């Protein structure tokens, strides 16, 4: 079986995490796409760390407001019941544990819940932006990533080698192969995504993976 990156599977699965009333922060890039797959009957509150809650969908073409953007700089809208605030309040909400879930992109994530996602020394230095606060502060941290790098290496590691965004904070990892919980220094495989098998995941990921009895195949 050949691996083909599939971001849609990742964001579709993550979109099923949330329940009514959850406050959720979606990181820039892949995580932002999760917002497009939230079930219609689930009402979550999205935070934009540049300064508001009640983040709504992109405006109609021609109705963009340059004074209302998401953390990636793209025009968005505000839902009824949303509220604006400054950056200190925004990160107070984050650091204070008021965000139920944050979904973050990944350079590396390891079986101890360490996350590296803000720099490759000497090469790519985007900076941490809000990622360090989000990783430390959110009640649950979901790492969202394609399972493999372009060169075929797994992004799931025994130990991150890149500079950490935060240590021991990642709760869940969702890749295009499966959904993992991180517990006791291991990846617990809760679901594997068709058409991949448990063996395919185990054979291609050099980390400690536990496959519990209730691990199940899911088609997304």
């Amino acid at each position, binding site marked *: 079986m050949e691996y083909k990156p599939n971001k849609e599977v990742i964001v579709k699965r993550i979109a099923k995490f949330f329940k009514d009333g959850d406050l959720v922060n979606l990181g820039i890039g892949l995580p932002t796409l999760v917002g497009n797959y939230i079930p219609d009957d689930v009402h979550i509150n999205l935070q934009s760390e540049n300064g508001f809650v009640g983040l709504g969908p992109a405006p109609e073409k021609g109705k963009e407001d340059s004074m209302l*953007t998401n953390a990636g700089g793209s025009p968005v809208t505000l839902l009824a019941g949303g509220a604006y605030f400054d*950056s200190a309040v925004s990160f107070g909400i984050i650091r204070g544990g008021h965000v139920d879930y944050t979904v973050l992109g990944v350079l590396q994530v390891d079986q101890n819940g360490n996350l590296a996602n803000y720099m490759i020394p000497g090469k790519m*230095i985007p*900076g*941490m932006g809000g990622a*360090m606060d989000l990783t*430390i*502060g959110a009640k649950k941290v979901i790492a969202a990533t394609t399972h493999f790098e372009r060169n075929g290496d797994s992004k799931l590691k025994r130990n991150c080698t890149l500079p950490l965004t*935060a*240590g021991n904070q990642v709760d869940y990892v969702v890749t295009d192969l499966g959904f993992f919980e991180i517990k006791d220094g291991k990846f617990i495989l809760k679901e594997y995504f068709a058409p991949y098998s448990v063996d395919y995941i185990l054979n291609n990921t050099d980390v400690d993976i536990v496959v519990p009895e209730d691990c199940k195949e899911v088609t997304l």
Partner: protein
Amino acid sequence: MIDKKIISAEEAAGLVNDGDVVMLGGFLACGSPLNLLEALQKKGTKDMTLVCNDTAFHNAKTGEMTGVAPLVLNKQFKKMVVTHIGTNFETQRQMNAGETEVDLVPQGTLAEQIRAGGFGLGGILTPTGVGTEVEKGKEVIEIDGKKFLVEKAIKGDVALIKARTADKAGNLIFDKSARNFNPLMATACETVIVEVDEIVETGALDPECINTPGLFVNYIVLTKGAK
């Protein structure tokens, strides 16, 4: 209430000296005082230290720039204290080449450091950055078994901020997500210059909704709105 001085963008740029620590409001240039930046670029003020969320956009392929990016390209800063430079390839290039000192700070920490500077705190204790590169060289304090970094307050010489509306007394109301670091920076600098879209009579703003009381503001620059 005493009226604040209303000056031009050029006069405002004249208040910024070579070597100043300049705090600049905005998040990817949303909420940055674009006319003040243009004036500062023209004047060529140099050796400044920039304190800002980011260095806006500079597209490596097209050369397109927003916000503070032209000043970065001009090398008007000897140092930048920022949280994110992923959208400006030139800042990354200068950092990697060792041409400019770039301090990367977690966004929530930068916000609190500026607020602490403005509000007379020596600093704050934050869990953010513990066990990372950010911890290096910093004091770590343990409280009830949890580790926190001592992050020191930051103050500046000049704050260049952007608001939607000022009254003549300098009370400010911002505009949606363009608020971001602006009200924080207004507290933390010796000289505070605000670029606004409109100036109204003192008393016309709802006193329950004023984000920055006029006491923090020194100069108002009226422009025709954000570019």
